[in-house]
């Protein structure tokens, strides 16, 4: 039993179980913490896929910034109600469960019936060089546009967060 196989099953169990806990915990702070565990699990999956830059970027961006942002916004939008009930289910709990299950079986059927031809080319050891080569030579336009997108999102988030002063 190869160590990689055991690790893959343990890490995928961690990812799926913590995603299930994100859904089924009615306390939204617990939900956010299980989401952090999901992100860390996904970073471990990236390491199993030899994507070292992606794993570190996932930890930095998702765990380090996005999770903190989510916890801050949770902190600012609870009103002193019972915190154990801040993340309830709505009325579509069972019907959307059925729909999502059918969708998952559909994807699974397509996936298991299609044959992928794996290639034998060696994967580069250092992925940062490869990503940087692509990003700054061939995909420079999406790179610059994503910079502009971040600027627009920054200005928009600050404007929305500032609020409007109503004239008295």
């Amino acid at each position, binding site marked *: 039993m190869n160590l990689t196989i055991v690790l893959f099953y343990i890490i995928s169990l961690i990812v799926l179980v913590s995603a299930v806990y994100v859904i089924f915990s009615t306390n939204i702070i617990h939900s956010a913490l299980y989401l952090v565990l999901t992100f860390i699990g996904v970073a471990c999956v990236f390491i199993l*896929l030899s*994507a070292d830059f992606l794993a570190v970027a996932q930890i930095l961006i*998702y765990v380090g910034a996005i999770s903190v*942002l*989510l916890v801050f916004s949770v902190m600012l939008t609870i009103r002193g109600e019972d915190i154990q009930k801040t993340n309830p289910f709505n009325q579509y709990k069972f019907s959307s469960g059925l729909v999502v299950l059918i969708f998952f079986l559909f994807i699974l059927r397509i*996936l298991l019936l299609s044959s992928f031809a794996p290639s034998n080319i060696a994967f580069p050891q250092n992925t940062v060089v490869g*990503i940087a080569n692509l990003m700054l030579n061939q995909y420079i336009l999406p790179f610059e546009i994503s910079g502009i997108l*971040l600027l*627009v999102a920054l200005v928009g988030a600050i404007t*929305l967060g500032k609020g409007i002063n109503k004239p008295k």
Partner: protein
Amino acid sequence: MIVLEDYLILAAALFCLGLYCALVKKNVVGILMGIEIMLNAVNINLAAFNRFIAPQNLVGHLFVVFITVVAAAELSVGLAIVLSIYRYHKTSSADDLDWLKW
């Protein structure tokens, strides 16, 4: 030996869990958490395809970087919207946001 299909099944299961979370939660921040789970599942899918089928250049990894950037931007604007709705209406439940309904 872990083949490509194992990673794809993991990504599909995670995507369906994120979809269920986005469909079933009342709290708007809970819905946004479901969206983040879905985006992470797609990232796993892209990295797996790049590793097994096309390892000659790293376009899949670059795509994952762009998806992460867009997810961060979208989440910050979405949470700013949630905060500004909460500031005026004192609610963050999606059932109470019904001013555009007939």
